[in-house]
């Protein structure tokens, strides 16, 4: 069966510091991968998605970037965090036209 991991689970970072969040999927090949941000426990904002290694689509221009160095690894990064980057970051995977499945999330607080 497939599993998705995200780490770290929680992160507190100062403004202006770099960020790297990692997402990995096990038990599947060539998944579509997604990064979402959820602010204030409500709506989901799609940040990036990837349909293959090195292929990244950005949905919202912002302070973040994403990379997919391996088939089942998706990384969310920032060179300099802003206060507004605080939120709950969710990674998801999907095969073909099937369901998206979500990871446990990373709670990021920027101080």
């Amino acid at each position, binding site marked *: 069966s497939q599993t998705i991991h*995200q780490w770290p689970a929680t992160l507190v970072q100062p403004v202006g510091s770099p960020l790297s969040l990692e997402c990995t999927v096990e038990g599947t090949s060539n998944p*579509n991968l997604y990064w979402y941000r959820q602010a204030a*426990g*409500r*709506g*989901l904002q*799609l940040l990036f*998605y990837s*349909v293959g290694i090195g292929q990244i*689509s950005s949905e919202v221009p912002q302070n973040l970037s994403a990379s997919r160095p391996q088939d089942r690894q998706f990384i969310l990064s920032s060179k300099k965090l802003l206060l507004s980057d605080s939120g*709950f970051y*969710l990674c*998801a995977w*999907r095969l073909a*036209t099937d*369901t*998206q*499945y*979500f*990871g*446990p*999330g990373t*709670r990021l607080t920027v101080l």
Partner: protein
Amino acid sequence: AQSVAQPEDQVNVAEGNPLTVKCTYSVSGNPYLFWYVQYPNRGLQFLLKYITGDNLVKGSYGFEAEFNKSQTSFHLKKPSALVSDSALYFCAAQLGDYKLSFGAGTTVTVRA
């Protein structure tokens, strides 16, 4: 624009009573529709989906949803709610080949 609407921010029901969470969609073509549930500080859990076929879809934890094409709705239902069903519920519709459009979410509170 293609979108999903959840008209109620909050739904409050007593344990044992029926639970309904509403969702309407505006999506071209034949929509793929999904329901997810989120508990505090957790990722979204998949409950059920409608792709094609029977308009009544059964999912996890006793939930079901009814697809109504004429009303462009996909309401989530549970005949007898439990306190443990208290959570945030999201409706979503597939856009194109890759992306989902999510509703804003409905907070369900089931009182004992």
